[in-house]
């Protein structure tokens, strides 16, 4: 049994047996990404949601390869096969309409796969672009401070005090229909949230003394912003990005549902749901419900992943 001396400073030291502190080495510190991944991996809801999400992404990417039918190739679609219930066979007996057909004879399963592709694509792309724009604005505001910060944040505040749906509505009304215009509108709606988020975290870093020292040494602005201020913003930014992706997908779906947004030639899940809405009252639920389910599953899995990341990245929130 180790003999404790009266001058032992730390009681816990006596509990460690056998190690000579002079030669023992600590294992290399774990990278924050790996640590986060490991903590995330321990949470079941997060893992399930992430797995599901990856499945959906794969399905979306592989749509042209695995869809039984290209629903937008007029040669493959005949109106005679319309409004078939799920599980019905096509007239030539070659394909089974697993999820039924819509009013124009398109296979729902294929339409959903393609729609998933577009919904996911637009949502993710717009969120990422808004992320880039917002980050630049936020970092600039934090770095320069003073008047620049005041002006930029005033703009951000004004934009954030407007309801997103109205902003999107007006933008789309002004810009018109089309994929690129929808993308632009979504980016314009989202950038302010990112800007505010980044500016907040960057400000914390900016006020630390080593930044002042680095500035005094003449370190170029962009290096300071990217190498020093940005890493501090990463954690909350990751959570915000996932949330915004979910929001963007939902917003785009809503716009499409209302008839503004993507054109009929690039139908997202929102448009599919809208098309099928009229059939709900006549009990042909599958035309609307299945695309709806796909959309809900997509958004929910992204939301759950985002929520779990939020808890993992800030351990104080864990109950």
């Amino acid at each position, binding site marked *: 049994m180790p003999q404790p001396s009266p001058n032992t400073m730390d009681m816990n030291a006596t509990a460690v047996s056998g190690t000579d502190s002079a030669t023992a080495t600590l294992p290399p510190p774990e990278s924050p990404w790996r640590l986060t991944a490991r903590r995330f991996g321990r949470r079941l809801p997060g893992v399930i949601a992430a797995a599901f999400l990856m499945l959906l992404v794969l399905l979306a990417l592989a749509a042209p390869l695995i869809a039984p039918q290209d629903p937008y190739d007029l040669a493959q679609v005949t109106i005679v096969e319309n409004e078939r219930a799920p599980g019905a066979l096509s007239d030539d007996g070659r394909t089974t309409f697993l999820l039924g057909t819509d009013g124009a004879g398109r296979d729902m399963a294929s339409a959903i796969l393609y729609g998933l592709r577009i919904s996911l694509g637009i949502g993710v792309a717009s969120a990422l672009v808004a992320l880039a724009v917002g980050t630049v604005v936020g970092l600039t505001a934090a770095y320069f401070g003073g008047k620049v910060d005041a002006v930029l944040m005033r703009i951000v505040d004004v934009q954030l005090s407007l*309801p997103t*749906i109205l902003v999107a509505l*007006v933008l789309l009304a002004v810009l018109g229909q089309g994929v690129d215009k929808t993308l632009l509108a979504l980016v314009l709606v989202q950038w302010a949230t990112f800007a505010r988020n980044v500016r907040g975290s960057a400000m914390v870093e900016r006020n630390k003394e080593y930044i002042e020292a680095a500035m005094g040494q003449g370190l170029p602005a962009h290096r300071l912003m990217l190498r020093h201020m940005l890493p501090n913003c990463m954690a909350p930014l990751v959570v915000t990005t996932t949330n915004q992706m979910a929001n963007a997908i939902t917003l785009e*779906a809503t716009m499409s549902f*209302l008839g503004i947004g993507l054109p009929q030639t690039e139908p997202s899940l929102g448009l599919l*749901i809208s098309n099928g809405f009229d059939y709900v009252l006549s009990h042909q639920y599958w035309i609307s419900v299945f695309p709806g389910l796909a959309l809900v599953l997509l958004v*929910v899995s992204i939301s759950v992943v985002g929520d779990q990341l939020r808890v993992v990245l800030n351990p104080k929130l864990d*109950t």
Partner: protein
Amino acid sequence: MLDMLARRALQSVLVVFVMSILAFVGINLVGDPIYLLVPPDATQVEIARASKALGLDLPVHQQYGRFLLNALHGDLGNSFIFNRPAVSLILERMPATLELAVAALILSAAIGIPFGMWAGLHPGSMGQKLAAGFSILGVSVPVFWMGMILIMVFSVGLGWLPSGGRGPTASLLGVQVSFLSWSGIKFLLLPALTLALHNIALIMRITEASTRDVAHQEYVRFARAKGVGPMRLMFRHIAPNVMIPVVTVLGLEFAHLIAFSLITETIFAWPGMGKLIIDSLLQLDRPVVVAYLMVVLMLYVLINFTVDVLYLVLDPRLRTKAA
């Protein structure tokens, strides 16, 4: 305290101003509105004359000046489609939207607060986990899909509730309302529930977090230490402190509800402002769109301002801060 309010008031005015410019620019300057107003076979002379009559040939800043002046008098032009003042069209339909928004607000508070408080007082329990799961769903599920599902289940499937439209209305203080009769409520219920869903989830979350925070505060223990029983503890000590952030969120969400009602109104064919704006957008009836934006924005700003005042009333600690 007063100067903080004054600053907020100023910011609100700024927001309205900016939005008016954006609205004016986007609606009146993009594309050429004149072509909507004249028959397709009009001659250049006729087009020029119509332009002059509508003031569309004036320089931009003058057009805006006219626009602003008229706006301050409550005149935002006539609807292209209905040929009546756009503002009256909007105001006629406002009660219906407000009724929907208020009903949704009441539902969110009535369901979200009790469940949220319960979850906050029993952390880690099965009920709390269910509530957390529900709130994620509620926040993620798109409003329009929820509305559709509700119609499918309660209208088409069970046949209990109507699938759209507004029921019989009665007059209350000169305004048409539908909640005074049971048949009126039947029409109100599904749209209100759809609109409220997202909000219920949000309120539940905030109430839970706030309750969890308050329940651990020393003053709760202190109250128990002087003999305060559980009922009194809940209503006199915990609830008032929990409600401070919750009420402010409710207030802010009310503004959101008004804006988001346009989705619900479209699905349920509820004759409010929202349905009008969608139709007007699709039909390019610009004055109505502008009028809608301005009215909703004014409401937004008013509500935000009221919430700021409310916050000061609820939390005495803020009142003496500026003093």
